[in-house]
């Protein structure tokens, strides 16, 4: 470590060597230059003898006892550490909750998260069961309507028989013109989108 008298040119932009502040500080620095008391090192070492061996790194910062003039240093230190931990946990929870919300909205087929969709979404597991059997009769009807009538339920089998045997004018145009596969999407569209 180098100790040298002040040179006014060492500051940013330079200073006048006869600057009153510099002169005053230099004069004060030269007059107050006493030697250290002879027993200072012994006093320090006897005080250090009562201290535990210092620790390294962050542990040193945590376990260093507060100084005599700062009785609240330990309290402030522990409070700062606790606040940091609480903020970190709260941030992690918030981030997790945010991620969960994003994931929930991302799974839905509709891009707009509105309450109406959320309501129609909830019964979807129960209602998704009912459209599923209707798919199999429809597919079987396209191949052979007679075979599909035997194992199928009453409601789906009645509809193909009407459409195939009687092209009634009172029926809906969709039912009369198009075969049953066109009805199946209509039924599934009404309750809810098909779940995965």
């Amino acid at each position, binding site marked *: 470590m180098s100790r040298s008298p002040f040179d006014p040119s060492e500051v940013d932009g330079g200073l006048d060597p006869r600057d*009153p502040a510099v002169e005053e500080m230099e004069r004060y620095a030269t007059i*107050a230059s006493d030697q250290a008391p002879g027993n200072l*090192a012994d006093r320090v070492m006897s005080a250090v003898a009562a201290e535990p061996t210092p620790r390294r790194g962050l542990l040193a910062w945590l376990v*260093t006892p507060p100084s005599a003039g700062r009785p609240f240093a330990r309290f402030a230190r522990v409070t700062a550490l606790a606040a940091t931990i609480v903020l970190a946990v709260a941030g992690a929870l918030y981030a997790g909750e945010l991620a969960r919300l994003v994931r929930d909205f991302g799974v839905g087929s509709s891009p707009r998260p509105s309450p109406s969709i959320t309501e129609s979404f909830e019964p979807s597991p129960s209602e998704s069961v009912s459209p599923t059997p209707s798919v199999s009769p429809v597919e079987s009807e396209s191949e052979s309507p007679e075979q599909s009538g035997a194992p199928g339920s009453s409601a789906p089998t009645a509809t193909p028989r009407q459409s195939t045997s009687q092209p009634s004018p009172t029926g809906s145009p969709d039912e009369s013109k198009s075969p049953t596969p066109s009805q199946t999407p209509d039924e599934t569209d009404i309750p809810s989108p098909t779940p995965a």
Partner: protein
Amino acid sequence: MAQVAWHDGRVDDRSLVDTVLDGDRDAFRILVEREQVAVYRACLRILGRPHDAEDVAQESFVMAYRALGSYRGDGPLGGWLMRIATRHAFRRLGQRRDAAELNPEIGLSAPGSDPLTALLSGERERAVRLAVAGLREPYREVVALRFFGELSLDDIASATGRPLNTVKTHLRRGLERLRADLGREAAA
């Protein structure tokens, strides 16, 4: 335990610190004996009273011992220690100013002169001390480390972790404010 060759006087700071951290308390004495004059002198310049300066210097060494594990070794150990000491001295000065000062300070420069000269000298030195202590941070720290601790600007930059140009700017602004404060004091 690592053995350091104390006798040659060229022990580098990092080895000294590592030896102390390994449990060799006697290694700390090397640091105390090497830095005690500078630390005591800086404390005396800040506080103006030899007894207070001795107490603060001792406490600063003990504080440095406790915090030795946090020394990163990116600057001279003397600068790191001087920063602890000047901060502690200013803190003590603040506490002392809060309390009533019953005894006027005797001039440090005139121990054997006549009472009037000693009193005038003491008043002048007190004005300098109070003007430096009244500076805002970081100007106060830089001015104190440079003039009271007699550190070079490079050492101040290392000890404070600030760029050298920033230290230069802080010193310049600190001296400018000091000039204004001392001029106001002289006019009063």
